[in-house]
């Protein structure tokens, strides 16, 4: 039916696949933290010391109820099942044993055999059955469906650590992550690619100076680079603050105070991403550029005597296609990639929230953030697919070929 519109068909096909992937990711996201440990147990072990068994049970049920881990009926009462518990108890049995005793006379001759009963106590372990009303645990399947339903309603649950809604935590942290990562990635990409294209075209001294530097930048792990920045610029020379997103002693600052403090704290984390990314992009663009320089159309353009900037523009446009895919992907992954940068600089973004949640086994927050990461990676890939379909004439051509 969509045969006439190959692009629309292509996009809708992609959309269905991505939606399915999203659902699978959602289920995985639900199951992963449910292996092994239980947040209520953690809280109980820390807070329930000295409580009587009944009180401890009451407290545990209250906690499970508040996290939706047990079943309630329509009136909100806890549904209980009677479970037969088997306990080992020790029973004391009195046993009478009959023994024969020889009684001897004064000369040592056996006279009579006397029968006597000896009473003794024997301990014996036995099992008793004891009925106990136990709150019914919500089944994993019902928890899953409940989870998916809630996610589509925008309710990501509440943090185990402080009872704050997860969506609020994400909304609070997301602007920091975006403000740090988006400009760093975008500017790093533009800067790196321009340098790479220039190096490929100019060669000579410029290339010889740039290439080793870019190679070094792209091969240093970004967390090592980040830590080195903290150590030298933060601790040794004290040019920039070591940690945080904004000065902690600011009390209700006005707009300019806030922006200037935030900018001051922004420098180190920004460069830790920017330089590394620019280095990698410059290397990629340089080799793409050198490849494109050897192609016929550039030779033709040069032979025609076109202006250098014009040739460079053609070169850039053609070499950029694979780089563009890389850009979209790194924007998709920026939320996840933020984790380590934010950890090093104690930057109050999403990665930091995630790290905090992981150390305290705060599953709703972990799930909320991973869901966001999954969604943004999927969305970025989807966008790349569409962009390529629209921009790359080769793909466009093959699409219309298919439909014929």
């Amino acid at each position, binding site marked *: 039916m969509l045969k006439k519109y190959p692009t629309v068909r292509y996009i809708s096909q992609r959309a269905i696949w991505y939606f399915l992937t999203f659902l699978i990711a959602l289920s995985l996201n639900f199951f992963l933290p449910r292996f*092994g*440990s239980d*947040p209520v*147990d*953690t809280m*109980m*072990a*820390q*807070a*329930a*010391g*000295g409580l*009587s*068994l009944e*009180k401890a049970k009451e*407290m*545990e049920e*209250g*906690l499970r109820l508040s996290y939706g881990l047990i079943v309630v009926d329509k009136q909100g009462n806890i549904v209980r099942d009677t479970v037969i518990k*088997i*306990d*080992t*108890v*020790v029973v004391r049995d009195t046993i009478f044993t009959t023994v024969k005793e020889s009684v001897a006379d004064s000369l040592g001759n056996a006279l009579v055999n006397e029968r006597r009963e000896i009473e003794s106590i024997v*301990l014996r372990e036995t099992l008793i059955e004891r009925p106990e009303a136990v709150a019914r645990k919500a089944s994993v399947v019902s928890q899953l469906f409940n989870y998916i339903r809630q996610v589509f309603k925008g309710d990501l649950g509440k*943090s185990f*650590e*402080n*009872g704050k809604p997860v969506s609020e935590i994400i909304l*609070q942290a997301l*602007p920091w992550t*975006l*403000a740090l990562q*988006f*400009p760093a990635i*975008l500017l790093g990409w533009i800067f790196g690619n321009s340098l790479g294209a220039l190096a490929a075209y100019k060669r000579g001294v410029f290339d010889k100076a740039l290439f080793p530097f870019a190679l070094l930048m792209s091969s240093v792990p970004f967390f090592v680079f980040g830590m080195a920045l903290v150590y030298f610029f933060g*601790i040794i020379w*004290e040019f920039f603050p*070591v*940690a945080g*997103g904004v000065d*902690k*002693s*600011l*009390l*209700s*600052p*006005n*707009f300019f*105070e*806030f*922006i200037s403090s935030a900018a001051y704290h922004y420098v180190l984390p920004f460069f830790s991403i920017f330089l590394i990314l620019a280095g990698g992009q410059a290397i990629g663009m340089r080799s793409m550029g050198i490849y494109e320089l050897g192609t016929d159309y550039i030779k033709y353009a040069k032979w025609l005597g076109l202006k250098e900037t014009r040739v460079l523009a053609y070169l850039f446009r053609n070499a950029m296609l694979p780089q563009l895919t890389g850009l979209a992907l790194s924007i998709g992954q920026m939320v996840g990639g933020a984790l380590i940068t934010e*950890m090093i600089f*104690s930057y*109050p973004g999403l990665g*930091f*929230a995630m790290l*905090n949640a992981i*150390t305290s*086994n705060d599953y709703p927050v972990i799930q909320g953030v991973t869901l966001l990461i999954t969604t943004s990676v999927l969305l970025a890939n989807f966008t790349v697919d569409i962009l390529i379909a629209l921009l790359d004439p080769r793909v466009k051509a093959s699409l219309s070929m298919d439909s014929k």
Partner: protein
Amino acid sequence: MRFMKKVACGVFVLSFAFLMSCEKKEGGSIPRNETLWLAGSQWGDPNTFNPLVEPWLVAWPVNDRFNLMYEPLIAYNSLTGANEPMLGTLISHDTEKIVVEMQPEAEWSDGKKVTSTDVKFIYELGRRFSHPVFSGFGEFISEITVDTVNAKELVTFVVNKEDRNNPLAILDMLQAIRIAPAHVFEQYLADNDNDFNKTKDIKCDKDPVVSGPYTLIDYNNERIILKRRDDYWGNKVLYDGKLPVPKYIVHPIYKNNDNFAVNLQKGNLDASMNYIPRIDEKRKEGVSTWYNAPPYYVPGSIHFLYLNNTKAPLSDKNFRRAVAAAIDYAAISRRALSNYAPEMKPGLIMHSGLEKKFYDEAEVVKHSVPLGDKEFAKKLLEQSGYKPVFDDKDVLKHTLDPSGNILQPISIKAPSGWSDWESIVKMVVEQLRSVGIDARTGFVDGGQYWTSLPSGDFDMIMRKPPIAVTASTPWSRFNAVLSSRNWVPASGGSNMYENEGRYNNPSDPSYNPRVEELLKAIPLIVDQDSLKAAYVELNNIFLEDQPVIPVCHLPEEYYQFSTKVWVGWPTEKSPFAPPQLPWVGVGRNTLWRLELAGK
């Protein structure tokens, strides 16, 4: 490309504008020389400051024994053992009742008096609504009565003789439970149709009604800021009319442990209460502790290796005693704990501080195995029928039990990432193997650790019972380690929140009823000599049975401070307040004594 740039700029500006909208308008950064920077009590995102919410969900300084915003009736001084006055004064306490006189001058920040109504509100809240903390009070307190004598209110807490019969625990409560303004919360309850959960959703973060010397003025996920209340009632009554010196107290929220040490050394942080290894090396940067020499800190709590008393071979008393003898405690303190643990003495009574009066060296030596004596451990194992088997390279292969079966290696659990505990466990494994006990490390994820502890799913496990140094120490420690009041078997999936190693099974023939008798009797003993006799007897039973292994004595809270900005901190030489951060218990007295450095 230009479009992309515009988008980038837009996002940048918008996101900061969003952040800005969370901020109030007042302006300025708070001056360093009027501000005390303290850290270590808040790790996560602060969410609510409501004193009725479960303590683990509430943010500093409302969540624990922090007496800055809300105050308890009395405060326990862990240095002198005195119960110091706060909102009330302890008049008398015996085995029947505890009487507290309310401070007539005490008032809330809205000008209303703090009265017995506020006290009854919080202590009786558990009768009206289900609450994990407040609901337990009824087991200890049967009734709260109020008498007015000479215009002074006397509040009497009657000990619940039928249930717990434990006046010591009530004394603990009086200093742990902070009084909340009844008039404010009754109004909240009335506004919410008596719905307790809705009342708990109120965050109490805007102009809260408090009784303490500081109040909350601002917070976000990077710090919490408190400001001094110059009209605090206690300045006149408790502190000779002086004001606390710092005008602001800031609690920066660090997630990374390295931040503490770095900021202390740079003078950005004035004091912290977290574990910093090798504190001695930071001394030249102006970082100090209570003592200038090892152990640097004042010991207050014991870290244990809990043993599973229901599982062979640890169900064998002699095997447990051999484990206690085999461990080299001095080496652990030296190599794993930066010398923070003082010399180890056996038993559950510390040989330092206020507990020292119950410690009887002669009795301990008589009943305990010699600590760190490998030959003794080897001999004891041999006598009890355990036999180590070595391979041809002299490496332990396994251990045989008395009937000749190969023992499963004993796994010692600890949460992974807790570096001090991890190194303790590694050393214990090494030492146990050297006497012929087949042991191995079992580092598990934090969540798994907390699950296996109460359910008894372990051979050996590192554990620090959550016990504060209070009026009830060391009884509370004995109770946490030995009590079989709530004994349930490990197999049935039931949890125990004290005596997790399941010592002294009441339905087992080896049950020793004397342990429970003493645990019940000690809180009621008034005469000091009989009290010591009871403690010594209980400690002797512990030493004979060795149900758990005390590994090291460490501080209840680490307390280190920097003298770069503020001086006048309490230390061994100037012990006017206990070694606590100036917000815990009576540690807050420090706030009235601090001075700016170089003045």
